[in-house]
């Protein structure tokens, strides 16, 4: 217990401002203490080691111990672990192997992907740039998969499906399933195999962050109606408003930091191993997850929507008919109602009252329409493969029903 407290004390004693200043200082005056190249050792450390070497200790083991302790202490001045620590981290190597990452992706990059911007505000050492790239790739692959596989999905359901496949909650769950552990506090001395981020102070309201980044005009007017179409233009991929800028002084939630890490891994694979590897990674880790899209619909008035849909598609107006029933006079009646358009049965549903059964039938008819999926779906990015067959245009639908 005492030891834990000591460690905490040692890292909290150095305020983040003091560390950034010292780092900025070194950065400006070219001390070169943080190099991306792993070959060049830290200058400060080499000095310290040479000093130690002068004092001749007889015990070699003890010397080793003292040296490593000095080195670790030297790392304390950095907000995130130095680059050369990545090679010696067992956790990082295990994570690399567990994800079957390409060998072209060095452990140093994986270590960088584990450092959140809240832990290390320096853009050269945190994962913000990798995560930006990874996020764009992820959302692109997910979008093209959804749009080509289910061309008739309403936009709100596409938003929900995007959130389910590539939203922060899913990414955080994936990071957990990859066995990524969190460091309790970021710092230069912690194992680079741990996810490092500065946590939110207890008691802060996470939802209260101002929407400073949203480009939507009149965003402050909460009572005003927001159309779905405007969400494409003003909001993010999941149909949510952009959150306020993640400032370096504040902390982030563990969910957000894990999501950023997963995105950064995606970006790192793309940079180091190329497009095919990134696509395979996406297919194996993201698309292989289970999602029942038919459970994402939330209709308010399915019968009305179905009537509008039939009018738009020049079908005959839908008529609900009882297919079978039992126990109309009893306490538990069951009605099976089908919705017909002319001779075609569009859908059917069972319910304890006629209205309920009709609603369910309309719902199944609408889901049958919206969940249409063509055979042999190809996505546009499959054209990037070598020797791909010539592109045939995919089915593009008219869009959802406007009521």
């Amino acid at each position, binding site marked *: 217990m005492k030891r834990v407290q000591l460690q905490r004390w040692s890292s909290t004693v150095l305020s983040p401002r003091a560390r950034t200043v010292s780092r900025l200082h070194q950065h400006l005056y070219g001390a070169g203490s943080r190099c991306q190249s792993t070959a060049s050792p830290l200058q400060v450390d080499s000095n310290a080691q040479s000093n130690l070497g002068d004092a001749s200790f007889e015990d070699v083991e003890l010397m080793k111990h003292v040296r490593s302790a000095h080195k670790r202490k030297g790392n304390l001045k950095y907000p995130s672990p130095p680059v050369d620590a990545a090679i010696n981290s067992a956790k990082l190597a295990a994570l690399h*192997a567990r994800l079957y990452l390409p*060998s072209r992706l060095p452990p140093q990059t994986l270590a960088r992907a584990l450092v959140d911007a809240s832990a290390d505000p320096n853009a050269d050492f945190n994962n913000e740039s990798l995560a930006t790239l990874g996020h764009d790739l992820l959302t692109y692959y997910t979008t093209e998969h959804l749009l080509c596989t289910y061309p008739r999905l309403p936009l709100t359901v596409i938003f929900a499906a995007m959130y389910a496949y590539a939203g922060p909650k899913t990414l955080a769950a994936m990071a957990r399933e990859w066995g990524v552990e969190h460091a309790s506090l970021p710092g230069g001395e912690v194992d680079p195999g741990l996810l490092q981020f500065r946590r939110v102070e207890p008691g802060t309201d996470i939802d209260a962050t101002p929407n400073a980044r949203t480009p939507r005009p009149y965003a402050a007017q909460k009572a005003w109606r927001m159309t779905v179409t405007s969400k494409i233009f003003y909001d993010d991929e999941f149909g949510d408003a952009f959150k306020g800028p993640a400032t370096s002084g504040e902390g982030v939630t563990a969910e957000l930091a894990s999501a950023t890490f997963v995105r950064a891994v995606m970006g790192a694979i793309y940079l180091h191993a190329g497009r095919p590897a990134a696509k*395979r990674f996406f297919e194996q880790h993201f698309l292989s997850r289970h999602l029942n899209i038919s459970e994402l619909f939330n209709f308010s008035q399915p019968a009305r929507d179905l009537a509008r849909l039939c009018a738009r598609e020049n079908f005959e107006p839908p008529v609900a008919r009882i297919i079978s029933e039992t126990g109309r006079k009893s306490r538990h009646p069951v009605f099976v109602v089908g919705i017909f358009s002319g001779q075609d049965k569009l859908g059917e549903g069972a319910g304890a009252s006629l209205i309920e059964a009709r609603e369910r039938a309309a719902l199944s008819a609408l889901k049958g329409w919206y969940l249409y999926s063509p055979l042999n779906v190809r996505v546009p990015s499959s054209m990037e493969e070598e020797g791909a067959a010539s592109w045939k245009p995919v089915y593009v639908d008219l869009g959802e029903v406007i009521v």
Partner: protein
Amino acid sequence: MFSRSVLRSLAADLRWSAPSSISSAAPLQQRACLHQTALLRTSQQETQTPYSPLSPETPLSATPRVQNSQPVAQNPPRVPSSDSALSFVPQTRADVPTAKQPVAPSFESPIQVTKSLMSRLPHLVGQSPHYVVAELHARPYLLTEGDHIRLPFLMPKVKSGDILRFNRASAVGSRDFTMKGSPHLDERLFECRVRVTGVESEPMRIKEKTKRRQRHTKQARSKHRYTIMRVMEVRVKTPEELLEEGAVVIEDSEDTPTIEARQ
């Protein structure tokens, strides 16, 4: 003995739908069919296996390794405690010598499909999702994609991460169509792959054994171990694929797999 072998050869002619697993005399092949699994190996090993016409195009996507565009040897991250620098490629079943690896089945004759089957196959293929009733040691397992299986036994000679292909099934189907074999389907008609994800065990069972007029009780303990798997893929081959693989279309007859529509 002689008459039985003659009968068997006759039966082999008749029952073309269940080709080599019954009639063939190759012991290794029968052993492979006993497990009903044709082992898939990593890409480099697959080129060595003598049986190529059925080697699927997908195993690369099935293997967990992300990159394949890079031919250089993998230099995996090592645990720092082991200092010896050995380039080692993590492979499944690497310690099994080549001669003892299970051999994928080879077929003497191309697959024969009836005209009615070919005409109805597009309906079955087009309607997803699919299920398969795979049989393993004469027990049926109804599988769909993504299912978690806990076999009632410990499968020998598999490691976690291995990909197996279940090649004996009595039925493959979708919501409205079912292709039934008699009794089994030809393994070239469908693909069902599973990945071994590990070994689980049950809680220790203690059975008290008593005998009459004796105060001594014996405790019999047992704790069985089971192989757990995950279904990666259940797929019916399209008619075009079957024709590409050299399928021969014949007239309808009895004792052939049929596709039945739902009543």
